[in-house]
Structures are given as structure tokens and as C-alpha cells.
């Protein structure tokens, strides 16, 4: 069970949250990038054995969306590359 830090409610049980999928790159203008880059944006998600950034929705709590980094090998919530 993850203990997910909600910015409004503090650490809450994972069962109060819905998983919102991986955080994706910014959507490019399809006319401004190559076909390969457009296909990659649409279909490819980083799949590391290590930290991934993802959205979670505090749906059975305050209703906010948040992002966190989670290690795919341990499920631990970890510091992301941009976290201070």
C-alpha cells in the first residue's frame, strides 16, 4: 500500500486514489515535428526499472490531481530529478 502525499490532505492511503497514468511529454504540434516524433509522442512511454513520473487522482478524498515519482522495482515514492 502506498502512502501518497496529497498537497491538501497530507499522506493518505493509496486506496483513496485512482491511478492517472504516466506523465507524458508536452504534446507537439504534429505539423511541426517529424512523423517519427509524432508517433513516438503518441505511443511511447518511458519504461524504466526505476523512477517513473505519474498522475494520481485523490478521487475518494479532496478530488485533486497530483504527480509523483514512483520506483517501478520497489513501488517506493521517490524524489524525482527535478525535486529539490
Amino acid at each position: 500500500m502506498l502512502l501518497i502525499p496529497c498537497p491538501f490532505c497530507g499522506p493518505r492511503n493509496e486506496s483513496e486514489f485512482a491511478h492517472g497514468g504516466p506523465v507524458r511529454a508536452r504534446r507537439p504540434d504534429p505539423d511541426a515535428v517529424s512523423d517519427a516524433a509524432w508517433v513516438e509522442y503518441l505511443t511511447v512511454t518511458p519504461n524504466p526499472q526505476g523512477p517513473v513520473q505519474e498522475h494520481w487522482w485523490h478521487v475518494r478524498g479532496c478530488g485533486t490531481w497530483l504527480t509523483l515519482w514512483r520506483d517501478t522495482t520497489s513501488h517506493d515514492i521517490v524524489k524525482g530529478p527535478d525535486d529539490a
Partner: protein
Amino acid sequence: MQRYSLFSLARNALSGHRNWARAWRSPPLQPAYDVVIIGAGGHGLATAYYLAKEFGQKNIAVLERGWLGGGNIARNTVTIRSNYMRDESIPFYVKSVAMFEDLTRELNFNMMHSKRTMVDVVQTYSRMRELRRRQLTMDIYGSTYEPISTEELRRRIPALTGGGPDARLPILGGMVHTDAGVNRHDAVAWGYARGADALGVEIHQKTAVQSLIRGADGAIAGVQTNRGKVRAAKVVVAVSGHTTTVTETAGLKLPLRTMNLTAFVSEPVKPLVDVIVNCPDSGFYFSQSDKGEMVIGGAPDAGQSFRRDIKQTVFEDTVTAMLSLFPAFQKLKLMRQWGGHLDIAHDASPIMSKTDVAGLFITAGWWGGYKAIPAGGLTLAHLVARGEPHPLMAAFTLERFRHLDFVMESGTTTAR
């Protein structure tokens, strides 16, 4: 190869079963092969077998980092069926089910195949519509799907006492897929390994591929393993959930995510359920093994995962859902639980394909890919040997992503 028969069994019984020949060799690792297959799971071993048997390739090595048949093939719930959604998928799985039914004879290895029908318990109208739609398409390709009433459902599965009119999701009816069956996963791995070995294929266990090696021209040149470099002009990646881990080393980006799918089994009890029961709206499925255990599977963990255990939340959700329809199972003791990491493609259909690296092939996205092992092995062997996709899998190459021509599949029971 030593044939298995009633006669060989009797003869070996006389010598106390001490003189059986080894089922496969453990030869020394050579510096080069024509084809290197990474991963001795179902897909890797079946591909090696059909490359040798149907396409006359002899100089093949299968490299396995652990022991053969110790990956997801050992962790799956052995449901074999062809009730998929898409015109591209159904004929492929119909072929695979038929090949499974003939596999005992083909490999001279008892698969303990038990054709026993799968019954879907339907609790929402959207599901009912989706399954009726599948039925129309399945009809075209000779797969079986028939609706049954709730009364008939309860007659066929007497333990199904929940889901009455007062339940949160009352049962609306069912669908029956008579082609479905279960068999013995170890026999599939060992049978293909023994068959491939007899045709000259070398299987190297405890041989982990650390990276792919590309030549000066960019084409595949071989693999780096913990036992040294192995050269090959053709390399097949058949590592289930670890596809991207391996292909990253050649700089490839693939539309695959790795997830953890889990299962658990109960103590053995007397025969109680003689079909495979699938409850997609509640989110679990199970069948009773020959030993009497209930083999139960649920939904995957939320998000990507390389873990191989079951999360408490997933476990509790699955058990709660199961007890809502099968309240008598409250008395069952649960014995073991586990998970396995599988990769799933962007559109949930498998990927059997060449790649941007010449000579490098992948077979991946096998979410529910146990049932696909015979047809997957045969058709991938065709692609590797001939350079052209087999008609049954031509829709499953990476080309579909290049053209944004997805084969969106919903027949993978628990995938969301």
C-alpha cells in the same frame, strides 16, 4: 530423443526410474550462432522449435538468464482460449488453441490438456454489448461464443450464489466459450525445450544477456552475456516483461509498458467448478486445477511495475470481488500468491516484428500470451527465417504504429 510411451514407462519402472535419459543437453556455449533467441520462456522455446522443425534452421541458441520455464510461463493461470475482439486477433488465437490441442502428440509430452469451456459472468449492459459484438466477429473465424441466461449460468456453476437481484451488480447473463481449456505450463516449456534440443537447438541456462551488440553498419552483431560475447546475425528478443530493458541497450524506443499481473491459489478441495469462470465486471477469474486448488487471478497493479508479488490492495480487492459472487469461498484457505511482470503494447495487441535494427526481432506485448505460445512461435519462426511476416501475424508488426493503425484489443481479460 527418448520417446515417452506406456512401454518406456513400464521399462523404466523396472529399473526404479533411474535410467531415464536427460530431456535436453547442456552443451558448451559457442562464440557464434546463426540465430540467438533471448529468453527460454514459452515464446522463445517455441520459436526455436519451429525454426528448427519447419524452417530447417539448425544453428540456434536459446539464452536464458535463469532456468528454462522459470519466467512468466511458470506464473500464469494457463487459460487457453480464442474469444478475442478483433478480426486480426481471432484467427491467430483459433490457430493457437488448435495447436495446443495437438501439442501432446506433436511433442510426445503429456500436456494434460483439459478442454473445459470458459463461462463469462456478465454484470453490466456495456459488457454484454461488447461480448455480443465479439460473438459476431468470432463466428466468422470459427471460434465459439454463445449467450446463456442467468438461470443456465447458475445451473452450470452451482457455487455462483451471489450477484442476485439485490446485489450492487446483479448478474445479467453469461457467455459460453467451449473452445477454452487449461493444461500444464511446465509441460509446455519442457516439451518445447526437449523437442528443440532433439532438433539440434542449444539451450543455455544461467546465461543473461546484458546488452545487444550492433555492428559498424548498425545491424545486430550479437549479444553480450555474463558468459562472454556471442555473435549472431539474427537475434530474437523473447523476454516478456523485460523487452524494453534489453532493446534499450540498442537504442530502441518501443510502445511497451511493463505491469505486474498477479494470481493466488487456494487449498485443494473436491471438484466444485468444472469450467473456467471469468467475471470481467467484478474483476477476477478462476479455474479449479486437477489437484483441486482454485487458481484465481485478478487485475494488475495500477501503474508500471517490475515487481513480482501481489500488492495487499490488489489482493483484497480481488478477494472481495470474488466473495461477492462466490460467498462460499469465504471458507477457502489461500495457500500461495505471486505476480509476474508482463509488457503490454500501446494498443494491447502483441508485437511480433522486425525492428529498426536490422536482424533484431522482438516478440512482446504478451499480456495473456500463454495461449499464444504455439502460434506465436510458429509465426515468429516464419518471420525470422523468411524475413516476411506470416499471414496470421502480419497485423502485429511495429508497422501499425508507424501508420497509427492500432489494433485496439479488449480480449485481454484483465487489462485496462
